[in-house]
């Protein structure tokens, strides 16, 4: 699939078709950047980390051994409009490899994401580097961050799972009327499987359930069709985005620097 050039913060996905070797990262809690430094936590983080630790605990103890079908373990979504949407985590897809290794594609909306992993993924798709502190602040203050991780479980090994970030999307919002989707990214080796679509649909679902109706994004010309297939319309009723000219000067500085 041709694609590309995605610009950071804007909607882009599916970059180049050049072969990129995979790097596996071991997951470890200490590698997560401490978001506590960057302002208020708008989500109940304690609840999120409890949910996550239970989930990973269950994997480590080998409770999910069945590799017959993809198990979709979706916690019930909240119907209380006053609460933030409950973070969810479930296995979107599962496949087994010849040596017995099981690979799971795990979807998560908890927003727990390692900025270094994200930076590596952005490098892969060819986006220019952005300051990590700003990136971390942007993630912390986004209304919702959805991620896809690939988890490889080796047979018989306890706790030696390899977890790698392979996709992400985020949305900013005023929690009432407007939302904008930014930074949609999927690892080139995992494209063409409906993963990007799943990320976007999840964001739309969460936003509409909260009555947030103006859902906007800014798409590179090469991915306009992708978003049209998801229900987005280009320049609906003549609505366009305009950008502040001061940004142009600063952005050019950043590009050259």
């Amino acid at each position, binding site marked *: 699939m041709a694609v590309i050039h995605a610009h950071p913060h804007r909607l882009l996905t599916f970059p180049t078709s050049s072969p990129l070797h995979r790097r596996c990262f071991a997951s470890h809690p200490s590698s997560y950047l401490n978001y506590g430094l960057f302002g208020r936590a708008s989500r109940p983080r304690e609840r999120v980390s409890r949910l996550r630790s239970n989930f990973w605990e269950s994997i480590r103890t080998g409770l999910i051994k069945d590799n017959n*079908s993809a198990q979709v373990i979706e916690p019930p979504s909240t119907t209380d409009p006053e609460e933030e949407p409950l973070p969810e985590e479930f296995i979107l897809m*599962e496949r087994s490899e010849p040596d017995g290794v099981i690979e799971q594609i795990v979807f998560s909306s908890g927003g727990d994401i390692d900025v270094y992993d994200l930076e590596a993924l952005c490098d892969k798709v060819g986006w220019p580097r952005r300051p990590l502190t700003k990136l971390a602040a942007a993630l912390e203050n986004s209304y919702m961050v959805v991620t896809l991780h690939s988890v490889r479980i080796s047979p018989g090994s306890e706790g030696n799972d390899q977890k790698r970030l392979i996709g992400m999307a985020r949305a900013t919002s*005023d*929690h009432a009327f407007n939302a904008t989707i930014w930074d949609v990214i999927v690892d080139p080796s995992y494209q063409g499987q409906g993963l990007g679509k799943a990320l976007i649909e999840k964001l739309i*679902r969460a936003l509409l359930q909260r009555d947030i*109706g103006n859902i906007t994004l*800014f798409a590179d010309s090469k991915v306009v069709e992708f978003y049209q297939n998801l229900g987005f319309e280009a320049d609906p009723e003549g609505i*366009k985005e305009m950008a502040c*000219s*001061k940004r142009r000067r600063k952005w050019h500085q950043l590009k050259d620097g």
Partner: protein
Amino acid sequence: MDVAAISAVSLATLAAMKSSSACYCKSIAMEIRWARKPRSNSQNPTRTALNSISPVETSVPLYISANPSHVQPQQLRRLFALCNHSCHRFPKLIQRSEYGEAAATAAVEDVDVEKLGIALSHSSVLVSVFCKPRDIGIRDQEEEVKGGDGLMGLGDVLQRLIPPALMISPSNGQLVGFGRAVSDSGLTASIHDVVVVPQLRGMGIGKMILQKITRILISRDIYDIAALCSANERSFFNACGFGDDILGSTTMMYTRTAPTGENAGGDYQDHMAKRVGRKLLLIPPPRELPSLKVTVGECAED
């Protein structure tokens, strides 16, 4: 003089002393500004809820504030109604009964106050502009009783003598302009709901609001500032220095609607479609991706 007047004096003095650099806006959240109209003709009477329309003064003192606590949702809702502004991009149009059958143009429905409050609390920047009620033709009850025989009472004389700047504050002023920005406090920001009452348009107030918002965002190191605008808002943003997206990105909005049957709107349960303004947007159902029990022959890692 009361406390509000005193603080307004010191603010005005400070405003006069400082130059208009970017850091000025960072350190002072509120300022007194003056807006000038090129001519002193009265504007066309507009559909408003004001008691009367009087000719706009050529020079209007304004109180512009970036303090979020100065704007109340109820007050803002009234301002939006005056400007026929909706927070929904595809608003539902209604006939306002108070304007009678003669009102040919449809009005947008009033914004939900509770949602407005939520939106305000999650906006990174809020800018509100106030003016004296008389500057947009609102007469208070006492003046109505006295009648318009041209004689000025003592109160009127005092008001003319004391610098007008002292008299405006968010508590006694009329909210006439507004703008806000939503941001992720790191990389991006988007500007929404920039409005000015019809009687005070063409005086640079909207531009003032936009400049204040952008200066505040830039002082917080956010340079990617976008504004969604419809066709009739474009010339305003152009005049304020906004231009087309430099990367040539296409603006897209989610507009997939649920197919409507005979009894439109009643068929859909809450988890399937959502009414937003005049559109009934389809909520994408959760999909299960096909399970793959495929053996994947891939190259060795690392």
